[in-house]
């Protein structure tokens, strides 16, 4: 990066779209003309010889709700790490839409293209209030100096209020997020994702630690989001997967073992052997 780029970024004026280290203020254009939002092609990731992902191929349609299941160590979290830029694949390609090469972008850049991620363990800002958690996640110009001068407009407040209602935390807006119950923290993190207005949501075990009632409400929420957003849900809870009703992909030892409707997958002999039978 040239000195000019550095200065530009610090001053906070326009940013080069192709800059390697910066990220554009406006979202990179997502091209879903072939109705596919995510392509993972022949992805391999190995850690000290252990292949966490082994020639993984996966395609997610625009607006689809896809569940990923698989035993521990099947590569589910590593797959999410590759998609969000945390881990670089040793080989293979990852494209978001037709044009955006995810293996070339940093985590914040990928977030700006429209991919939101929920972690397995709820990761929220415990010292901040519920309201502030949503405020920080909200789509905005997220460069340092523009953030310094940022302030909340009325329609921003309305958006946050809407999301608070959607995740049923409107009574908790001013409480520190660290004081929420485990299930509420999961919901808050989902709410933060929604504030980002992502095109693709990656949700790693979103209902872990939730009551049955909360789990079913989460399923309702996700089903209502599908269509407008694309969702990839990693989950062990079969009742939840069934309630979501989408296509299911089974991962095993870093590659796809089976794919299809839940009933078909559950009756697949290989799947029963490696996963469901145990």
């Amino acid at each position, binding site marked *: 990066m040239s000195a000019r780029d550095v200065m530009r970024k610090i001053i906070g004026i326009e940013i080069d779209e192709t800059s390697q*280290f910066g990220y554009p203020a406006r979202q990179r254009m997502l091209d879903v003309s072939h109705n596919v939002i995510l392509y993972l092609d022949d992805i391999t990731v190995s850690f000290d010889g252990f292949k966490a992902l082994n020639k993984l191929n996966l395609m997610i349609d625009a607006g689809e709700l896809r569940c990923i299941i698989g035993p521990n160590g099947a590569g589910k979290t590593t797959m999410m790490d590759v998609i969000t830029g945390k881990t670089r694949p040793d080989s293979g390609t990852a494209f978001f839409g037709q044009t955006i090469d995810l293996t070339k972008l940093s985590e914040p850049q990928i977030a700006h293209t429209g991919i939101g991620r929920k972690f397995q363990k709820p990761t929220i800002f415990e010292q*901040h209030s519920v309201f502030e958690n949503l405020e*920080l*996640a909200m789509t905005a110009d997220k460069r*340092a*100096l523009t953030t310094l001068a940022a302030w909340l407009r009325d329609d921003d407040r309305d958006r946050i209020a809407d999301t608070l209602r959607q995740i049923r935390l409107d009574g908790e807006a001013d409480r520190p997020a660290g004081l929420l119950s485990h299930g509420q923290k999961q919901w808050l993190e989902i709410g933060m994702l929604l504030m*980002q207005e992502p095109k693709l949501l990656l949700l790693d075990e979103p209902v872990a630690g939730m009551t049955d009632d909360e789990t079913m409400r989460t399923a309702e929420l996700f089903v209502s989001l599908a269509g407008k957003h694309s969702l990839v849900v990693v989950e062990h809870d079969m009742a939840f997967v069934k309630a979501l009703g989408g296509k299911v992909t089974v991962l095993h030892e870093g590659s796809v073992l089976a794919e299809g409707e839940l009933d078909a997958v559950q009756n697949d002999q290989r799947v029963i052997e490696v996963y469901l039978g145990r």
Partner: protein
Amino acid sequence: MREPLILRMLSALDARTRLGVAGFLAVALLLVPVLHLALPADSAFHVSTYAITLLGKIMCYAIVAVAMDLIWGYGGILSLGHGIFFALGGYAFGMYLMRQIGRDGSYQSDLPDFMVFLDWKELPWYWTGSDSFLWVALLVVLVPALVAFVFGYFAFRSRIKGVYFSIITQALTYAAMLLFFRNETGFGGNNGFTDFKRVLGYTITSSETRLVLFGLTATVLAFTFMFARWLVASKYGRVLTAIRDAESRVMFIGYDPLWFKLFIWTLSAVLCGIAGALYVPQVGIINPSEMSVANSIEIAIWVAVGGRGTLIGPIVGAFVVNLAKSWFTVSFPEYWLFFLGLLFIVVTLMLPQGLVGLWKTAWKTLRGAQGAKA
């Protein structure tokens, strides 16, 4: 258009803090000068030159403590090498003070004495313009900023964190100290700069000059505090504490922590540089020992003792520790380091929130007891 920054800074303060800042400025800018100049030296209320120099020095340290709290308390970045930025600001302004000596030095030369001693015939290129107050004032800000920016850019881009970052900052200040110890570096070697005569043409030891420097330091401290208060209450401040608590979440919602850390890191260095520039004319000397590792660790101790993440705590800590130090080093010089070590252990183990936390707990308990009675 929104209100100017100064008004937004003021409106970010609650009424009690505003009153506190106003009271502090009234004492420093009015009461102290009156007590110093108008009262005879034997009066019980006379403020001595010694007291003014000591308090002025401690206020410089308090600015550094606030700067440290911004990166450590709010950004979660512990620097154990902040002395380098303080010293760089001090050296930059010291160059100007050396040039102000003119031909009144021991060798009656245009060159500073130490250069004559080294048999140098002309000023090194980096002393160019050091006789201009404005240029030097610019250097006081730019040199620490540049060093901090370059160092911070590579450290934060490589995602160096926690204790590793702290160790590298120590190495940085230690390397700088060794560099400044060398006579060939052109900053007076291990003696540094001293024997200042004038600043802006005014005699540096006169009461009036001292009072102006004292008042200026108090004003800078008050503004640093108000600016820091405003900064941590802004959205930027919330992102900063979010990075401290859950950096990966911050990245995945689209903020690049590099630029957030780099901004606060550079700002903190600049504040230290300004504090250093105010320190040198009041104390009358700057030498490489300001860059020693122990000095930088002491900065962290002031913040920890006062209470980090509170902004007022570090100011309290800087005053308490340094007043204790100036009393100890006179009365029991050999025990000071033991006391400092003990203080750090006690605070770390028993007062994680520092003196401010202790005060808050005591206040709550007192109020609780009163409430129970009523």
